[in-house]
């Protein structure tokens, strides 16, 4: 009894510490964005929405934000079919180059982004598509695709293998089985993966930095350019908008598939 109690207290302490540590930067930036002063400080000096008004006025920030959304959209649209098929194949079949694929799946953790960024810059330069926005979306997709594949593989791996046999037994030919049974069953994984891809592409900085020029900067690059001169509270405000986007994504996820699907060991 006492040991169980001690364990509970210990666990809760850990959880509380994690929550504080994880949310501290968010809370600080959230507070700083509402400051009435001209300096980015925490706690804020007075309360006002003037920095939100200022970012709404700033066309360069707004355009950069729209460009980032566009990049994230391209990235997600490409990732959905590619990642879904690859994820299902990896989970279900003895894929021929499994070893090579696993190494690829580890790439985001092993290769510094600057490396992949330079590589892509050279490739896109040779292809003559540097300076356009859509290749940035493709680049984000290439770099982050393993996350998508993982999300789908996790879903497909927990699938009952008899499900597809049952569909065949019901008279479904292979294509119908895939479209009507396999795909819907991995949908939670596809949705998670897509939102992850979207958010990662929205936030992608290093690779964008290498691939964009002054005319097509994305939001993270725009923010970076600004902090090189002076750090003003409008950056805190734009960060809060970013956080809002992520929160929105999570809400959509919850509405579509229910967060409990992911919080349980699925």
């Amino acid at each position, binding site marked *: 009894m006492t040991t169980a109690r001690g364990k509970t207290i210990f666990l809760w302490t850990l959880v509380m510490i994690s929550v504080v540590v994880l949310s501290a930067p968010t809370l600080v930036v959230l507070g700083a964005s509402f400051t009435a002063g001209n300096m980015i400080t925490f706690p804020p000096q007075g309360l006002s929405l003037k920095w939100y008004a200022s970012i709404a006025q700033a066309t360069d920030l707004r355009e950069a934000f729209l460009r980032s959304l566009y990049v994230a959209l391209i990235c997600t649209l490409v990732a959905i079919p590619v990642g879904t098929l690859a994820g299902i194949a990896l989970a279900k079949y003895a894929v021929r180059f499994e070893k090579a694929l696993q190494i690829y799946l580890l790439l985001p953790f092993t290769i510094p982004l600057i490396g992949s960024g330079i590589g892509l810059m050279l490739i896109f330069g040779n292809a003559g598509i540097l300076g356009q926005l859509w290749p940035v979306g493709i680049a984000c997709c290439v770099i982050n695709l393993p996350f998508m594949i993982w999300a789908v593989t996790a879903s497909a791996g927990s699938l009952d293998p*008899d499900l597809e*046999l*049952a569909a*065949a*037994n019901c008279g479904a*030919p292979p294509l*119908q089985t895939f479209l009507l049974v396999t795909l819907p069953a991995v*949908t939670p994984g596809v949705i998670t993966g897509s939102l992850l891809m979207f958010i990662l592409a929205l936030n992608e900085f290093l690779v964008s930095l290498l691939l964009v020029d002054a005319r097509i900067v994305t939001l993270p690059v725009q923010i970076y350019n600004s902090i090189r001169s002076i750090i003003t509270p409008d950056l805190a405000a734009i960060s809060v908008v970013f956080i809002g986007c992520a929160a929105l994504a999570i809400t959509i996820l919850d509405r579509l598939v229910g967060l409990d699907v992911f919080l349980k060991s699925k």
Partner: protein
Amino acid sequence: MAVAETGLDRLAVEGPVGSTAVSVRNVNMVFGDYRAVDDASFDLQEGKFLTILGPSGSGKTTLLRMIAGFQAPTSGEIAINGIPVGHVPPNKRSIGMVFQKLALFPHMTAAQNVAFPLKMRRFDARTIPARVAKYLDLVKLGGFANRRIHELSGGQQQRIAIARALVFEPDLLLLDEPLAALDRKLREEMQLEFRRIQRELGVTTINVTHDQREALVVSDEIIVMDKGRIQQNAKPSATYRQPSNSFVAGFIGVTNFLSGSVTDVTDSEVAFIAGTQPLCGRWVATDVRPSAGQSVKGAVRAEQIRVAATPDRLDDLQTTVAGSVMDVIFEGERVVYEVRLASLQDATIRVFDHDPSQHAEFEAGARVFVGWNARDVLVFAE
């Protein structure tokens, strides 16, 4: 009770001999160097209920999967309604299957699950709702059409799986231990339910189980498998009363084996000596005759043995042996005694006593006598 009922009905159903619905010919399935199904052959008449019974790993599921078309046999031929199906993919076979873990589609409602085979098999869209409703009623789930699968209880999911397998009126119904996960009461209910539905629709059925009671209660025919081989293919009563070998005798019911060597062979009886105890029994195999000195074992079921405090109470039995009670197991409707027999090299046998009120109820350590008739001892080669 249930056994008696199905027994009567079986007589009524057995009219003219139907045509062969399933024919399995010399089918083998080899995984690497492991033979999961070894030269299996049987025929099943239309409308019959066949149960494949066997211990874990005996090849039951493998056999069923080959019939369903999920796996191709290494060699041999399977024909359904007289047509070889070797090159027919599973979705082109008219077979309904209830999987061990049900494999219901989790993203569909109960009704959508049942409608799925109809859509895939291109039934007229206007007739589908009525047909789905009919089959949901058949499994007594008419009011649950719009429930999601995870909103149904285990037994209800079971019945949706049955409805999905039956709704397109397949030529053949395959059941792969779909009841194994249920508690005993629900399982027995569902067994009778299967039997009711199967008889109502007259669909040829192959049922896989390792529950011998289920096999005896619901089947027209039982195939007993062990190590990939078919050991016996017979009616339930024959499987129980005339097991074709010692594996079947030991697998079904509670059977005591008494090992000994043959002393004398007459037309219908074999005399053998186990330890210092002379015994007598029936020789079962028809193809070979026992010879004197051969090692054999006599099989006698726990319910064919009676136990008493004195030998005179067992006067009517041909064999009586003295023993001592080792253990008493109270099972409600009966008492099981484990009795050690000194004259049979201390062999321990199990005896059922269904009516303890008539006899003395013995305690562990009590000196008792056990007895049986020679005709209840089946003798097999060792």
